[in-house]
């Protein structure tokens, strides 16, 4: 008796599953354009847990703010109707393989428009899946130039490429430092992005007449960079440039103190603009020069966010924290995708792709215009310096809030 019930139950479940499955499929076929009901569906695989959870959360905030601002305005104009922006998030656990799989899942669900994951490794993995599936992705934070050398046609990045990250620091320091540094040591994490950024920096340093006395690497996300510092100590470099993430960036300044490494100044990618950097180092953070994709002083405006200052104010109101560049990148990526959909008058991935490749606009994030490989080459990066515990934009000059304080150590 009991087993008969069980069998009936199982059969019922199976039948239901088939029916529901079929319905799901039917739904997809009818609305292949990416618009379901009055919603424009966009997928984002983000690092919500794992080692990049912090940056992933910031990127998500940018996407969220974009969705809210767009929908406040009535939504996205697609042809003659307005639809609400609806971004679906899934967690790639900071693992590139997972990011790629999630992109496939989105594709299976008929989601063709994608906002990028956090970081170069995940973006690189996701890009391959996007290209294969005929989706289109706007990359918010994958800056490694490798992503753009594979001939992909459906990946567009709003941010400046990795080679600019250290180069802009060299430029900012060599422009106004007095006395000028003569020698430089490069310390880099061993991931693709940091290595590419360091290569760009070495090139810029040589061009600026600096002598490169050392190039050392260590594993990414390590908190111990003492080996590299011990090796460069005897070279007494005037400048130490770190192509790093937050942990290694903090470790370079901290362990330099411990080991008695005293250059005229430090420059680092990624870490200095973060509150974590200033909090962990306290006074030792002062004088460190950093590079950033965006500051609230960036020139330009757009119809959704207004100017960079407007964006910063909205962000502060929404998340009760100071706006920083990861979330701005996210918001800018989302902005580019929305503008492209409106321009294309359709959510069809091919039409959106064509609209993206023709996009040429000002925004709160600076100019957005993609070259053939999908890089946003018109946007300059900015350089900042920590001065008395605050992040001050020092370069390019049209954004500068303060002058470079030099030498950059001992304050």
């Amino acid at each position, binding site marked *: 008796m009991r087993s008969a019930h069980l069998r009936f139950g199982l059969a019922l479940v199976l039948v239901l599953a088939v029916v529901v499955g079929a319905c799901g499929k039917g739904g997809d076929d009818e609305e292949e354009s990416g618009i379901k009901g009055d919603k424009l569906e966009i997928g984002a695989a983000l690092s919500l847990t794992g*080692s990049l959870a912090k940056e992933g959360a910031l990127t998500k905030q940018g996407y969220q703010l974009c969705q809210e601002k767009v929908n406040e305005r009535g939504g996205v104009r697609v042809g003659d109707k307005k639809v609400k922006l609806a971004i679906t998030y899934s967690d790639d656990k900071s693992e590139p393989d997972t990011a790629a799989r999630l992109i496939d899942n989105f594709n299976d669900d008929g989601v063709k428009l994608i906002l990028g994951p956090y970081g170069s490794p995940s973006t690189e993995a996701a890009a391959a899946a996007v290209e294969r599936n005929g989706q289109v992705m706007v990359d918010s934070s994958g800056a490694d130039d490798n992503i753009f050398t594979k001939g992909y046609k459906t990946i567009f990045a709003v941010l400046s490429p990795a080679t600019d990250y250290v180069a802009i620091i060299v430029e900012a320091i060599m422009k106004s430092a007095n006395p000028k540094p003569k020698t430089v040591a490069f310390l880099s994490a061993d991931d693709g992005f940091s290595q590419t950024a360091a290569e760009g920096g070495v090139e810029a340093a040589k061009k600026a007449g600096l002598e490169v006395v050392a190039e050392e690497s*260590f594993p990414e996300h390590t*908190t111990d960079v003492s*080996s590299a510092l011990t090796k460069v100590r005897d070279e007494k470099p005037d400048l130490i440039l770190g192509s790093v993430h937050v942990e290694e960036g903090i470790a370079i300044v901290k362990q330099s103190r411990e080991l008695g490494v005293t250059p005229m100044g430090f420059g680092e990618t990624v870490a200095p603009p973060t509150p974590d950097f200033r909090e962990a180092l306290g006074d030792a953070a002062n004088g460190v020069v950093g590079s950033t994709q965006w500051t609230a002083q960036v020139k330009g405006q757009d119809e959704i966010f207004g100017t960079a200052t407007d964006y910063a104010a909205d962000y502060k109101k929404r998340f009760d924290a100071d706006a920083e560049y990861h979330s701005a990148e996210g918001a800018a990526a989302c902005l580019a995708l929305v503008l492209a959909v409106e321009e294309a008058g359709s959510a069809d991935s091919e039409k959106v792709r064509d609209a993206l490749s023709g996009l040429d606009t000002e925004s709160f994030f600076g100019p957005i215009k993609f070259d053939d490989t999908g890089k946003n080459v018109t946007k300059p990066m900015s350089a900042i310096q920590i001065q008395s515990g605050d992040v001050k934009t020092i370069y390019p000059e049209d954004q500068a809030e303060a002058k470079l304080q030099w030498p950059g150590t001992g304050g």
Partner: protein
Amino acid sequence: MSQFLQATVYGLLEGGLLALVAVGFSLVWGVMNIVNLAHGAFVITGAYIAWKLNTELGLDPYLGMLVSAAALFLAGYLVQRLLINQVVNAPIWMTLLLTFGLDLLIVQGLQLLFTADFRAIKTSWGTEGLALGDVRVPYGRLAGFGLAVAVTVALVWFMTRTRTGLAIRTTGMDRAAARLMGVNVRHVYALTFGLSAALAGMAGAILGSINTFSPSAAGGFTLQSFVIAVLGGLGNMWGALAGGILLGLVQAWGGQYLSGTLVNAIAFGVLVLVLIVRPAGLVGRPYYEARAEA
């Protein structure tokens, strides 16, 4: 030469910190045959407790570590008594699964509570140091090293000179016999696990004052502890210190004379080498290595 000396001193100090992290892990593995995959999560929890005490009350991490240790002792005792004791007789997979789940739970919980931001406990003296000629000895690391040695000596004394310590070791050697001798095995297991968690909490507080940390660092600490416990050998309280110092030195020298990106490869290379030459680890007892818990 000064470069070699500096690397050696720094590696030695780093080794002490590694040992401090691993000593509790080695203890529960050696005594209870439990590979506690949540160990790193305990370390990070200890770091957050000390960090909170430091930012809210301005408490020095060397005082904060006592609070961390006490809180984690209690948590560890309860976890063992209420959770792990349920599966302690089951195949090792069950304890692995249970502690792995616990690790996920704690790490995600910490992330919800404290976000994934990187933290550091600031001390005014941590990055200052002695200068012995060209060789710098930072106070923060020196103190951490001293603590690792002190903790190890105290643990050895506790295990060999006190009744409770003897009961713990007896239980580790033969649970059935220990029970027949009147040892309350459940209590002893919980006590050992609590002690291990307390040591992890202490290590977290000190590491937090030297390095940066975030919830996602937990897995790395567990892995490090695993390597050090095997390197040093199980069943000997000096094992973690020996393993930690060896690892610290090898990584420092490797970083100087090979590539800095190879530190992990070097660490595991040394592990393999030690296992070939001395399967029981540097100072481990062969009995523990050969033991198959029934």
